[in-house]
């Protein structure tokens, strides 16, 4: 039977190839990317199914990176959809790069050896994982659009592109923020029903989650009040977004393991 490690190796390979395909100028590039993404997506789905099958009805621990990978793959067709190719290409490339990075980090620093625990047998725990993973994927999509917006700033003629890219960035940030908040509330309810306390200090991930929430609250305020210039906001979304999202992945990464080991 195929193991989750092998499936992750396959996912990493297919996402990597899809990223390389996105860098080429082939005529049927989009078809090729789709053809490579589908098996990658299937491999990610297989890992989630296998881990859930083992742990059900408890929560498989540290599944978030793979769940984010799956969500990114599912969101990709909608997320990278833009009328202008000037925006589409950088968004596609950065999204695929993000997928490769997440897959490679999960493969090299796995933390799938933790056993589930009895207190995770609650709907709130599952909702915490699911909403959190979709929220994080939305944030990564918003970073991709912000990156596309930043690339437009080099061209004087592309102000409308910059506006459109930042509009999409904001769209994905709002979705990410809403889902992230719902995930945090589910985490709070899980904490109350499981331990009777508002905060479970055993898990430092609460602080990385909080850090990302405050960052995106700040970004939304910047956007809604138009306090900074568009370029400033795009830079903030890229640099700050990548930093806080990297931080949120930290608690789910374990010690180094040879990625080629079977």
């Amino acid at each position, binding site marked *: 039977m195929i193991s989750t490690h092998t499936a992750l190796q396959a996912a990493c390979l297919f996402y990597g190839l899809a990223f390389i395909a996105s860098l080429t100028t082939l005529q049927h590039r989009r078809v090729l990317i789709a053809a490579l993404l589908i098996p990658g997506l299937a491999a990610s789905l297989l890992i989630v199914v296998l881990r859930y099958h083992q742990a059900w009805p408890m929560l498989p621990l540290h599944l978030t990176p793979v769940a984010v990978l799956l969500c990114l793959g599912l969101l990709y067709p909608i997320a990278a959809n833009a009328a202008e190719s000037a925006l589409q290409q950088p968004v596609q490339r950065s999204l695929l790069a993000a997928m490769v990075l997440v897959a490679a980090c999960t493969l090299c620093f796995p933390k799938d050896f933790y056993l589930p625990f009895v207190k995770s*047998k609650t709907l709130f725990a599952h909702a915490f994982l699911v909403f959190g993973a979709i929220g994080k994927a939305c944030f990564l999509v918003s970073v991709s659009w912000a990156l596309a917006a930043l690339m437009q700033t080099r061209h004087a003629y592309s102000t409308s592109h910059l506006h459109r890219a930042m509009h999409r960035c904001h769209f994905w940030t709002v979705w990410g923020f809403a889902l992230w908040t719902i995930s945090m509330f589910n985490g709070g309810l899980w904490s109350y029903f*499981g331990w*009777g306390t508002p905060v479970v200090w055993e898990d430092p991930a609460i602080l990385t989650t909080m850090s990302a929430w405050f960052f995106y609250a700040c970004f939304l305020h910047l956007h809604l009040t138009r306090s900074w210039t568009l370029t400033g906001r795009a830079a903030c979304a890229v640099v700050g977004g990548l930093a806080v999202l990297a931080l949120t992945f930290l608690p789910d990464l374990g010690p180094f393991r040879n990625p080629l080991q079977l």
Partner: protein
Amino acid sequence: MKTLIIHCWHAMASIRLTIILCILLTLNAAWGYFCLHGNASLYMPMNDMGLIPWAKTYGRSSLLLTAWFFLLLFLLALLVCNTFTCTTDRVYRLLRAGKTTSPMCLAFKLAPHLMHYALIIILAGYLCSYLFSQVLTGQTLVPGTHLSLPGAKGQVTFTSFAPEYYQGQRLDFFTDHILTPRAHLLLSSENSTREAILTATRPVRFQGYTLHMIDFAPKSLGGMNMPTRIDLHIRKDPGVFLYLSGMALFSIGLLFYVCEWILLKEVNKQSV
């Protein structure tokens, strides 16, 4: 004096202050992650002993590792003041202008403000929880025994243990392991008696207290020769209602905001 108050109010209501505070809170929480990582035992007692006794003991003795937490409290206090003043200003303006807008439109416009007020309620709930909770730890019951709740005339009797086991052999470790430790309790007060089921994720409320199962034995079918017992934490937490209400309010506000945003702003494709 009045001018000074108005000046302070406006300074506190600044959106720039919100942005600065959010950036500082982002950085502070990131710093906190590195301080908490590997040092959870320093913070865990706060859940049982409350904020003030924790700050005077653990907090003060390891200031290098806990400074971020005190800074977090300070920043959150500032954020609450800033959110309250800023939101109240805007709500006041909205309500004054609201006479000419439809109730539905006004409800949509008030949604973000509802979320801001809800955030204040959540934070107040957490603070209440850590300041005023009464916690009784280390309450162990075996079948047939009972305990009395302090200051209440009720009695909790542990009648029987009916666990649910892990099905199948998907994870070797969990074969025959208890998945749902189901404890049957009899809750007797002066006027009535009722039965309740306590599990690891389903607390039982009784006479203002909440009973939480922290641990149990035996853990598996093979361990049935171990004496059956449940370990309880009994809490009287006045903050729970506040922060749960805050979460519900925030969710309602969020729902309205997303609906308005999808229905109106996205359709109109407003400029950024």
